[in-house]
């Protein structure tokens, strides 16, 4: 575990030890403080001696006398400069902190004696600080906080090899779904003031489970190839590859503010320098899971698991659902496991399961449980059985698929909504209900239309037309009976046609007399029927007036009388008949009647 408590702010007590006596220009402030006044035996704590002053010409180095009961584990310095213009004057104030890592080695009260400092011939001194050392350590013994690797010296150290971002993967060849622990740490031999990601770590192609993410630096000392580094863990994750092939953990970059160890404390600016450190890409070879003997029950699990299943109750009433819970426990890619498929069971409705993960990361592996809760609704009464459930997973250690089983489970249901009464009035015992069986084989199949036929509607229209005709005929025949004029009018056409036909026949028989008489009767009879007039009772002038009154055009009337006159002449002076053409007269009579 990383060191804890070394920089803990809570409980830190600032003890002002000494102040400069007078406010002279060259005077400095010299103070001492500890981050905690009660420390555990062997626990580390910090003593900070800080020197603050304007225009300090040289770095004053304090002297800390040997402390009985305490070990000095290391020392580092930090420096900050504050420049301001006040009243047109440049004011430069510098603070140099000397940080001592210390540990108590005896119980009881321990006094840190005053530290001394000589500056421009003057002696400065801090107040003694009293510490209480208790038995129960408030934290584990841990290495030096800050940047313990830095020797505290002032010499320039090259960056190369002394500051780098380390990304390590626990393994480089894995199966799909097999975990890889990845550690990202900053190794430094400098003092790092702060830092931040320049390129955030992204793990494309992996399911990422975060283990740890630093929110501040916690350095611990580690020796690599003879060099001692301050190492701060930045991030730790467990990755699960999603698909086979070569997948790369992309380089990431970190910006670190490196405290400059300068030759002189006068360095006005640049007391720290931002340095970007890049990590190296790591290629992970992801092996596909063997396809050859992959069981049908495989749902994506890679690791080692156990399976437990239970039904939350053995009886249910009124169609209430029962819950079948399946619980996978173990190590592996628990979050990537899909729910198993339960076979359809007649009479049961199995709903989509509720899925829950409870996953924690322990020493580079992911451990926990995954549970699937299937609500099952009985559709009728009786005893139901859910057959054995099998879930297969891949065990990367033995490189083989393994099967887990749970069940079978059974329960009984009663009082379901759709259940039939157990016994009907007849006393017959009803064992259960089911759908009716299929229809028998066919010799031919129909091809029925989903749309209705169109012709019944057409037929309906026709019958409406018939009703219309009937109504019309009915009206006509009633009027024939009640309205004499209407009756004459409707009779006229038929009558005229008959008389004309008769006249024609007489003409064929060379009966000129009869022909002319019939023609004349036809014309006059037509007039009578057409205009509802009694033509035999009217004089010629009266008839003419009556026709004019009924808006018959006078040329038509003239032509009419001409026909009638010629008929009269032909009847009564037959000698002249030969001179006349009876056919022409017949045509003229017909035209006249058509014209009215």
């Amino acid at each position: 575990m990383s060191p804890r408590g070394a920089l803990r702010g809570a409980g830190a007590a600032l003890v002002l030890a000494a102040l400069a006596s007078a406010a002279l220009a060259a005077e400095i402030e010299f103070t001492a403080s500890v981050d905690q006044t009660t420390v555990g035996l062997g626990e580390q704590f910090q003593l900070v001696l800080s020197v603050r002053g304007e225009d300090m010409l040289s770095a004053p180095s304090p002297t800390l006398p040997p402390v009985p009961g305490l070990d000095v584990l290391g020392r580092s310095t930090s420096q900050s400069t504050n420049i301001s213009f006040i009243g047109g004057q440049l004011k430069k104030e510098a603070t140099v902190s000397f940080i001592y890592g210390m540990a108590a080695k005896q119980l009881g009260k321990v006094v840190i004696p005053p530290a001394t400092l000589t500056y421009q011939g003057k002696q400065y001194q801090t107040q003694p600080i009293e510490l209480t050392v208790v038995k129960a350590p408030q934290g584990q013994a841990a290495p030096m906080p800050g940047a313990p690797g830095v020797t505290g010296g002032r010499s320039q150290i090259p960056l190369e090899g002394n500051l780098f971002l380390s990304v390590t993967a626990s393994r480089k060849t894995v199966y799909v779904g097999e975990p890889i622990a990845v550690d990202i740490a900053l190794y430094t031999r400098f003092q790092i003031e702060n830092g931040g990601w320049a390129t955030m770590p992204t793990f494309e192609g992996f399911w990422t489970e975060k283990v740890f993410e630093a929110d501040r630096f916690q350095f611990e000392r580690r020796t690599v190839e003879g060099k001692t580094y301050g190492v701060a863990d930045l991030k730790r994750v467990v990755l699960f590859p999603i698909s086979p092939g070569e997948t790369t953990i992309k380089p990431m970059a970190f910006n670190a503010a490196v405290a400059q160890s300068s030759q002189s404390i006068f360095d006005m600016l640049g007391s720290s320098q931002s340095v970007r450190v890049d990590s190296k890409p790591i290629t992970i070879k992801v092996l596909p899971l063997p396809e050859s003997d992959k069981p049908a029950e495989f749902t994506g699990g890679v690791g080692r698991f156990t399976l437990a299943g239970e039904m939350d109750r053995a009886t249910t009433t009124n169609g209430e659902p029962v819950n079948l819970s399946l619980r996978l426990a173990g190590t592996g890619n628990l979050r990537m496991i899909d729910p198993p498929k339960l076979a359809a069971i007649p009479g049961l409705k199995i709903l989509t399961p509720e899925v829950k993960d409870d996953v924690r990361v322990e020493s580079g592996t992911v451990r926990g449980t995954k549970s699937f809760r299937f609500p099952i609704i009985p559709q009728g009464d009786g005893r139901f059985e859910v057959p054995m459930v099998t879930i297969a997973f891949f065990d990367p250690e033995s490189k083989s698929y393994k099967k887990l089983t749970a069940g079978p489970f059974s329960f009984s249901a009663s009082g379901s909504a759709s259940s039939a009464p157990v016994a009907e009035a007849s006393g017959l015992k009803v064992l259960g209900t089911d759908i009716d069986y299929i229809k028998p084989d066919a010799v031919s199949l129909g091809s029925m239309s989903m749309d209705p036929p169109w012709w019944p509607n057409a037929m309906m229209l026709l019958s409406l037309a018939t009703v219309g005709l009937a109504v019309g005929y009915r009206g006509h025949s009633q009027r024939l009976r009640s309205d004499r004029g209407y009756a004459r009018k409707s009779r006229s056409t038929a009558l005229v046609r008959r008389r004309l036909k008769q006249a024609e026949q007489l003409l064929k028989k060379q009966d000129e007399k009869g022909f002319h008489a019939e023609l004349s009767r036809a014309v006059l009879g037509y007039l009578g029927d057409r205009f509802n007039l009694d033509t035999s009772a009217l004089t010629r002038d009266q008839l003419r007036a009556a026709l004019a009154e009924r808006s018959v055009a006078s040329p038509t009337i003239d032509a009419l009388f001409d026909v009638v006159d010629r008929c009269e002449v032909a009847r009564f002076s037959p000698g002249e008949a030969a001179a006349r053409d009876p056919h022409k007269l017949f045509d003229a009579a017909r035209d006249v009647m058509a014209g009215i």
Partner: protein
Amino acid sequence: MPALLAVLALVLGPVQAYNDGNRLYAQKDYAGAVHAYEEALKTGNDPRVHYNLGNALFRSGKIGEAIVHYRRAYFLTPRDHDIVANLAFVRAYRVDKTSGGSSPLAHAADRALRWLSRSEASLIAGVLFTLAGLALAAWIVWRGPPLGFAAGVLALLGLYGFLAQQLWAGEVGSRPAVVVVPEVSAASGPGDEFKQVLLIHDGTEVKIRETRGEWALVQLPGGSGGWLKQSAVERVY
């Protein structure tokens, strides 16, 4: 000769597929039976095929699709007791219990009108109204009391057919559909980004009020509704 064989295959193909489906069904190969019945339906609608397909679908656990085919069979032959019984049986298997809620009187009227299929109702309405019209015409002309009586009776029977036809037409016009996926959530608008408002399950019968692109606004019998992908439902007619 080959032409004759082709015609024979065209005629006997669906029959063959249907009989094959029956054989597979008896062997409890319901998926195979579903396939065979669907093949038989490609050339035309026969209520027996729809009914047997409904059975095979129900045995495969597909309640929604079974309801679709039972309803088509019922539409074609509503007096078949097997269809009515199985439709009611399968409806009881649904997760969403939508209450019918209709009064017994309305239910009885519905059953009485649905005694005829839509085609039968249309036929009866057409023929009886035509006969009633002719009887009326004859009565108008000749005024015989038996003619008037016949016209009245025929018109009443024709009215029954007409109402039955209108009932079916109204149902077809309401664009009924059935949910055919195990579970789907309806959204408040036609898109994935809208709020999910309703969770509905396989077999729930809805009416399609509106469609936009691949989305359809469906309404449940209770009146609530929402937008679903059109692929989640299947139209009955």
